[in-house]
């Protein structure tokens, strides 16, 4: 079971007790409620105030974490477009024309399901080649129509099935990266939950990358990493410690440009307010970027990724800039 859900369950008794006292009222209830509430808050701060990397992995996968559709609902308009024109429409990748604060844009998102049935339809947010081809088709269209590209990233990784290999998953992901390299329009990516490896990066080669505090973004899933290192996927928590997959680490490395603090206990504690904050920041990023010319955007995006690396001469600084 999800670690965070388990922790939340341990509070249920206390929450119920407070609720009961509240509804019963009475002369002595006030003081008791206050006492219970302050110990409740203190406990919550203790448990959720300083999450380990593995706890954050669980937070990013929390069954109530805001999903792409929770964010898409806050845009002024959204008209979904379907299909890769070759094979099928991939429900794990939702994309289409949209408007935000009156600005026209192209919205491209990875969509997980809220329940088992929807998750099966959405393939748990694992995008197939068709999904990436739909995305790159619409990225190219956006660039031609001069519409900024906004992406929402939330995937455990690209789909690893037989069909995906038969239809060239690698080529489809490379196609998205190429389309984003070429785009002469602002690209703003937000890692809303899980940023799983190349399947996530395919939508996140961006001028501005936003990451909510408890999202994760990783070169490999902690389970996959543990299985490679120790032949034991159950040591995922140890792997999570090493992968530097938290927002703080990634901001330090220059992989992420902006981290948005989440409410204590995670974004799902206050989905309406939190998703609205993220949308505000996406809007602000677009406003900063849309004054740049297509050439400027491409040049700066190139330089941004050109600098990411670390080799011997400057390993001590953690991140490095290329010599030339």
């Amino acid at each position, binding site marked *: 079971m999800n670690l965070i859900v388990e922790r939340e369950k341990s509070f249920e008794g206390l929450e119920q007790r407070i609720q009961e006292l509240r509804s019963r009222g009475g002369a002595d209830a006030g003081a008791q409620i206050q006492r219970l509430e302050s110990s409740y808050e203190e406990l919550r701060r203790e448990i959720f105030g300083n999450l380990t990397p593995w706890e954050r992995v669980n937070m990013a996968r929390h069954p109530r974490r805001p999903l792409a559709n929770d964010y898409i609902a806050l845009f002024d308009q959204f008209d979904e477009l379907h299909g890769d024109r070759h094979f099928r429409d991939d429900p794990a990748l939702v994309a289409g024309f949209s408007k935000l604060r009156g600005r026209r844009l192209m919205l491209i998102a990875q969509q997980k399901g809220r329940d088992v049935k929807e998750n099966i339809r959405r393939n748990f947010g694992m995008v197939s080649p068709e999904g990436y081809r739909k995305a790159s088709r619409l990225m190219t269209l956006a660039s031609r129509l001069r519409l900024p590209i906004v992406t929402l990233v939330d995937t455990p990784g690209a789909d690893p099935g037989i069909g995906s290999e038969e239809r*060239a998953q690698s080529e489809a992901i490379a196609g998205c*990266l190429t389309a984003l390299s070429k785009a002469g329009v602002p690209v703003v990516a937000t890692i809303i939950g899980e940023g799983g490896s190349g399947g996530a*990066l395919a939508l996140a080669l961006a001028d501005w990358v936003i990451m909510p505090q408890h999202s994760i*973004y990783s070169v490999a899933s902690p389970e996959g990493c543990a299985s490679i290192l120790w032949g034991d996927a159950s040591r995922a928590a140890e792997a999570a410690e090493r992968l*530097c997959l938290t927002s703080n680490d990634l901001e330090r490395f220059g*992989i992420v440009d902006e981290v948005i603090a989440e409410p204590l206990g995670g974004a799902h504690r206050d989905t309406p307010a939190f998703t609205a904050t993220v949308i505000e920041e996406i809007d602000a990023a677009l406003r900063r970027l849309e004054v740049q010319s297509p050439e400027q955007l491409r040049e700066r995006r190139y330089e941004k990724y050109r600098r990411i690396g670390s080799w011997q001469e400057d390993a001590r600084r953690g991140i490095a800039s290329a010599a030339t």
Partner: protein
Amino acid sequence: MPMPDWLSIRRDKQIPAEEAGLWEKCPSCGEVLYSKDVEANLSVCSKCGYHFRMHAYDRINSLVDDDFVEIGADILPGDPLGWVDKRPYPQKLEADREKSKLSEGIVTGLAAIEGFPVALGVMDFSFRGGTMGTVVGERVTNLFEEARRRRLPCIVFTASGGARMEEGMLALAQMAKTTQAVERFMNDGNFYMSVLTDPTTGGVSASFAFQADIIIAEARAAIGFAGRRVIEQTIRQKLPDNFQTAEFLLEKGHVDVVAPRPRIRETLVRMLDYAVDRRRILSVLKAVPEFALG
């Protein structure tokens, strides 16, 4: 430019490694082969055609006309995450340097093949499984930027297990970096061929490997995005033997040509002959005499 040390060393027939193992057993057909014969046959089993993995410098040696001017050899790995699993990452790197006689997972440089000046990159699986960390990403990016500046066609031999875990997201971001450099290079009207060798998977296959104009796969190579084991675990069944092989990819339409190793060079040359205006390249090279090759 003088011939680099490694080239003279590897061209010298007195390599200790060669002396050590006089005989090799083919893992495919079990035939016992004379090591020097195997090497003379580009590390392909003369009986069954099994392709042994090939050292990057042996590969380069088998392709280039004359000198190979290595670039990017001074870009060497650090330890940005302070990674430790069974051993600290720097120790793993040291062991791989020892084992592979390489400084990192790719060798890049400038050379001529059958008179065609080219930028050439060759990955080697024996260094960290050919994984792409920041050094591989930087060397590949440098190679394409140099090739673009000189308007040279670019050829990259891939062999990789994907992005390098020990460098975390810094490694994954190299997919973005290399893709951009390749896109710029190609967008300028330059020609790029990749040769996918055993194995080519993950972050390398999903970036510069499959971006090429012409994709050649070495016979029998395993090529795909997800590793075979991952897929088997996901679908809980055994995969057919030919799944993710070069021949499978040809049938599915993912690669232009499948060629056995002894025919890779001539295939490249034939493609270069169609795609490249040799006079244009030579005129550009004359303008930069210190790099005039071939």
